[in-house]
Structures are given as structure tokens and as C-alpha cells.
């Protein structure tokens, strides 16, 4: 039972982490609270749905973040750049963006649920005669690899340094000769690209339809509020924590009760902590 809870908890946490990473980077770098984040997850799931019959599931998973990130880049230049560093404006703007994306997908692809097959159907042994779905293991591995990869890239690479500098002080970064506009556009493309990757990875286990994004936004928001907007390491930790708590209640008892417990605990933590929302950035 404990092994199952741990495995299931990490798998729920992995999905939360994958969807929270992009949200937290976008806020960290440009102060934009992206309420259309769930719609970019949905676009990733549709990319997976449409591409995997043509080019196979693995190529589709590789391509989905690039396609969604490219859409993100266009959206950033057309809309998001007018909303930098204004949380309220960015919420309103991205809320409207979410409606537009959802309706466009509805018009083009229709309201019906879409089917994506499982790329891997096997199971792994957890010991004690217990098994766990292989695809959920892939999700956990992907979250760990992407999370650590992002952290290393930000800490070590030249572009990562520019992103971090812009995060701390955009004006100083610009005065040092950095192209802040380009850094911001890149950060939004990466944030939405990560959402696209999350969508492609969850599509084989989830139901793909135009309104599927909201639950991912809610989950990502929960993690980001607990972790503090803008912190990758905290986001990974809190995603695992939320996932494990969910599974600890949901496996032996009930999913409705699990949601009540998770949100009550989250509210209590936020209420008692009395810290500023924003942790040390990125």
C-alpha cells in the first residue's frame, strides 16, 4: 500500500510539476500570471493527438513543445509583451487569450473527446508483488529530467545568465547591453513549450478535448502558490508534496476527500506562512 501511494503520489506530482514549471518561469522572468497556461497544455495534447498517427508518438512528443513554444512566441510578440510586470493586466489579458484559444480549437477540431493511444503499455515491478504503469514512470522521469535540466540551464548557460539577470532587474540588464525583449520572448516560448510538453505527455492517459486545460491551470497554480512564483526547485518539491498528499488520501480512501484535504492544507500553509508570494526568483 505504501509503495503504491508513493508511486502514485510521484506520478500525480510529476504532472503537476510539468505544468507548474512553465507557469513559474513566465512569472519569474516577466511578471506575467498566465491564466492561458492550461490552454497551452491543451494545445500540446492536441499536437500529440494529431501528430502521433502521422509520425509516431515519440517524434510527436519531441515536436509538441516546439510547436506550442512557437505559438507562444507569436502570442508573446502580439499580446503578452504589452502585459509585462503587471499581474492584474496580465491575468485579464491571458484570461481572454484562454477563451480565444479554446474557441479556436473548438471551431477547428470540434467538441468531441479525442483518442491518443499509449506509447508504452507495460508495467514495472515495485517489489512486494506490486506493479506500476510504465507510462506513469515515464511521466515521473520526464518531470525530473526537465526540472533539473531547466535549473542547470539557467544556472550554467550564457542564455540562462541573461534570463536570470533580466529576472532580477530588467533595466540593469538592458543597460548592460542585453536584449531584454528577446530574453522575455524566449522565456515565454520556453514556458509555453513546457506546457506543450506536459500536454503531449499526459494525453495518452487523459481525455483530450478543448476544455481540458482548466484542471492543469488549477493544479499548476496550487503548486506555484505553495512554492512561490518563480522558483523551479521549490516547484518540483511542492509538486511532489501535493502529489504524495493526494495519493495518501486518495489511494486508501477517496478522491473527493483527497481534494478537500489538499486544498485545506494548502490554504492553511498560505494563511500561516505570511511570506511574500514571490520566492527568490528562478
Amino acid at each position, binding site marked *: 500500500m505504501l509503495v503504491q501511494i508513493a508511486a502514485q503520489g510521484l506520478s*500525480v506530482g510529476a504532472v503537476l510539476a510539468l505544468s507548474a514549471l512553465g507557469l513559474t518561469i513566465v512569472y519569474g522572468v516577466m511578471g506575467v500570471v498566465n491564466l492561458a497556461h492550461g490552454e497551452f497544455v491543451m494545445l500540446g495534447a492536441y499536437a500529440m493527438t494529431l501528430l502521433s498517427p502521422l509520425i509516431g508518438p515519440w517524434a510527436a512528443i519531441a515536436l509538441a513543445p516546439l510547436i506550442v513554444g512557437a505559438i507562444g512566441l507569436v502570442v508573446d510578440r502580439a499580446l503578452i509583451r504589452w502585459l509585462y510586470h503587471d499581474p492584474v493586466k496580465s491575468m*485579464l489579458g491571458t484570461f481572454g487569450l484562454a477563451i480565444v484559444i479554446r474557441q479556436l480549437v473548438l471551431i477547428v477540431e470540434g467538441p468531441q473527446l479525442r*483518442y491518443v493511444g499509449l506509447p508504452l503499455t507495460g508495467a514495472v515491478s515495485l517489489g512486494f508483488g506490486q506493479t506500476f504503469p510504465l507510462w506513469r514512470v515515464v511521466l515521473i522521469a520526464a518531470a525530473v529530467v526537465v526540472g533539473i535540466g531547466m535549473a542547470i540551464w539557467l544556472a550554467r548557460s550564457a542564455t540562462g545568465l541573461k534570463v536570470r539577470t533580466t529576472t532580477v532587474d530588467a533595466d540593469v540588464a538592458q543597460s548592460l547591453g542585453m536584449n531584454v525583449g528577446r530574453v522575455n520572448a524566449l522565456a515565454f516560448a520556453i514556458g509555453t513549450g513546457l506546457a506543450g510538453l506536459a500536454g503531449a505527455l499526459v494525453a495518452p492517459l487523459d481525455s483530450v478535448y478543448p476544455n481540458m486545460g482548466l*484542471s492543469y491551470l488549477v493544479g499548476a497554480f496550487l503548486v506555484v502558490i505553495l512554492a512561490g512564483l518563480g522558483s523551479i526547485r521549490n516547484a518540483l518539491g511542492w509538486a511532489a508534496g501535493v502529489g504524495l498528499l493526494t495519493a495518501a488520501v486518495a489511494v486508501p480512501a477517496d*478522491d473527493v476527500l483527497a481534494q478537500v484535504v489538499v486544498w485545506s492544507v494548502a490554504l492553511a500553509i498560505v494563511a500561516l506562512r505570511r511570506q511574500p508570494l514571490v520566492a527568490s526568483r528562478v
Partner: protein
Amino acid sequence: MTSLQPTRREVLKRAGAAAVGTTAVGSLLAACGSTGASTTTSATNAAATTGASDTIKVGVLFSLSGDLSIAETSMKNATMLAIDEINARGGIGGRKIEPVVEDYASDFSVVVQKARKLVNDDRVAATIGCYASASRKAVLPVYEQGNAVLLYPTFYEGLECSTNVIYTSLVANQHLTDTTNWMVKNAGKKIYMVGSDYVGPQTYNAIVKKLAEQQGATVIANRFFPLTQTEFGSALSDIKAAKPDLIWNTIVGAGIPAFLKQYQAAGFTPEKTPIFSGICTEQELAAVGGAAAKGHWFPASYFETTRTPDNKTFVQRYQERYGSAQPTNMPMQASYTSAYLLAAAIEKAGEATPAAILNAFPGVSAHAPGEGTVTVKPNHHTTHTVSLGRANDRALYDVVVRFAPRDPDPFPPSIVPASKIPSCPRREAS
């Protein structure tokens, strides 16, 4: 970067405000959508007021937009197909049916406005419509106060018998009794139950639990999920540990494909742990995909694969008109049959007033494609013949066993104490 770092409280407060905004905008949009729909679809009003005696106005009330539109658009289509067929053969006693189509946009407050319009403004002879129980419950007062007629064309949980509603599809006792007996006898006595957390699945599971226990089975768990949940890993872990003989499932909507795919991913097989679903027609199953759908059980009074000449004609006519993208299913067949039941009731009544139609309904029969003759009983529900289907690799159900016809009982003694069983029909809304 801004010098004013927002505090956690500040942002939470704002996020809350944004959420309130969401709801308000949502309902505004729904309202706009619905106004548009009523202007486009009731262009017939003018004609109706001048020549009311020449046609019989029938309301067709479904969601043609929003979350419920996948199911309900096809029900509207099936209703319209039947109405056109009736008109093509000369109408009812020489009078053509004039459909008044309304879209309630998956919104249970809009459905009330639309029902009021149909009953009070259009003065329709009857309405065919509604799908989710919430929509039927919402319009009950409108139909009861206006003494109007609603034909409700989908299977449902029962516990209701309004004087003003004719329930033309299955009620739970018809849908579940023979199925549960067969399931316990052939698939095993250790049952794990799952379902979406609202009245339909709750009632369905309660009935199956009672019936199964009467057959000597044990229900080892009865789990419900929030309606929008698509993550079932926790439940499946528990099911794996519990090792039931079978799973009884009443998860609905977007949860169905996710549940079946995660069940497959977790290494369950229909041979070892079969799933019997109460609420999963061909339409929901289409999104699961053949590989994950195969071997899955569902009881219904109609399956697309039924190879009778009348069903071939029905499927062919439907697909000629609306395309073959979606399979035909039980609510569509019941919607289609509802129009024929209504025509028969008006013919029997000799006039198209709601009171006369209601009086005439008990005893009225019609032919249901792929099923046979169905008859409206004095309790306003309809006789039906249920079959148990098993999904093939095209995500359609093949009939495995056909049960004997069964009379409807909206208040089955298995879950309703004898003292609480009302006389039917009765006024439900006071």
C-alpha cells in the same frame, strides 16, 4: 523588475477576483449565445400565429453548444429526422408538425428560459428534450405549472414520475436489474464500484449494490470522483490491491476515456477484471479507442450494431443526413422514437392540446428501431427490452445477451422503502 513586490495575499486576492470574473463572463456568454439561437430558430413564429390550426408546434429543446452539445446535438438530429419522416407521410391527421428548435447551451438556467418560451410564448403542443437530469429537474416547474408536456428521451436514475413528463427511454430498474443478475452470475461476486459524484451515478450504484447483494455478491468499495476529474491512478491502485472479480462503473463524460486508458495502462484486462458500465454509450466509447475499449460491457435498449432491417434503415437515414462521424446510440434512438410516440398520442387524443395529449399517453405504442414496440405505461415511463453489449475493437458494442422486456418502475422497492413509494404520476415540483 517592479519595485512593488506583490505579497502572497495580494495575489491570492486578485486570483480570487479573477475567478469570480470567469463565472460572470461565462454566464454572459451563454446568455448571448442563447439569444442568438432563439432568433434564428423561431423564424417560424409569424407563420405559426397566422396559421396555428394548420400545423402542430413541437418544441425541440437540446444543447447545441457547450459541454453537453456532443450528445444533445445528435439527439436533436434524431428528433428532427423522425419529425421530417412523419411530415413526409402526411403529418398527424393531415396536420404537419412544426418543430421549434431551441438551444439551451448546456446551461441549466438558460434551459428554464427556453422552456418558458416554448410553453408560454410558442404554446407548443409538447416538447421533446433535455438530457442531464439537472436540465429535466430545472424545467419541471415550467411544465407542471403550465400543464404542458415534456418527452424526456434518455435513460435516467428514476425516483420521479411527473404528471407532465413522459419518460421515453430506460429507467434504472429496467436498465440495471437483468444486467446485475447476469453480471453476478457470469462475472463474479466480488464487485468494486466507481462513479462520478452526482445524483445519477449515486442512484445507479445504490441500485446495483442492492440487487447484487440480493444475488449473494459483495460490494467491496463504492468510490465517487469529482465530475471533472480525469486522474484515476489512486483508485486503480486500490482496485489492484483489492482484486475484485469485476468493476461496476458509472463515471461519465470526459472521465470515461481517461478511466479506461488508465485501467489498460495499469495492466488490467477485460478477461480478468471486466468493467460493466452503466453510462457509456457508443458515443463516449468512440473516444476511448478500439484497443482500450475492447471487452468493455454496457447494457442498453439500443446498439448501433443491431442487424435488423429497421435499424439498418434508421442508421442509413441518419448517416445520409448528418454524416457517419458519430455512431448512433440509445438516447438518439429514444429521441427518434419519442417523435413517433408523440404522433401516436396526438392521433389517439384527436386534438393537439397538452391536456388531451397527456390523457392519451398511457397505452400509446410506437416502433423503436432495433428494439421493437415500446409502450407508455400509466406511470408515464415506457416498456423496454434491454440487451447487454460487449465492445469490439471498433469501439462499438456487439449484443451478447438479450433480456426479456421489462416494465418500468421509477421507485424500485430495492432502494425505496414501501412507505415512501408514491402513487404515479404525481406533481413533482410544488
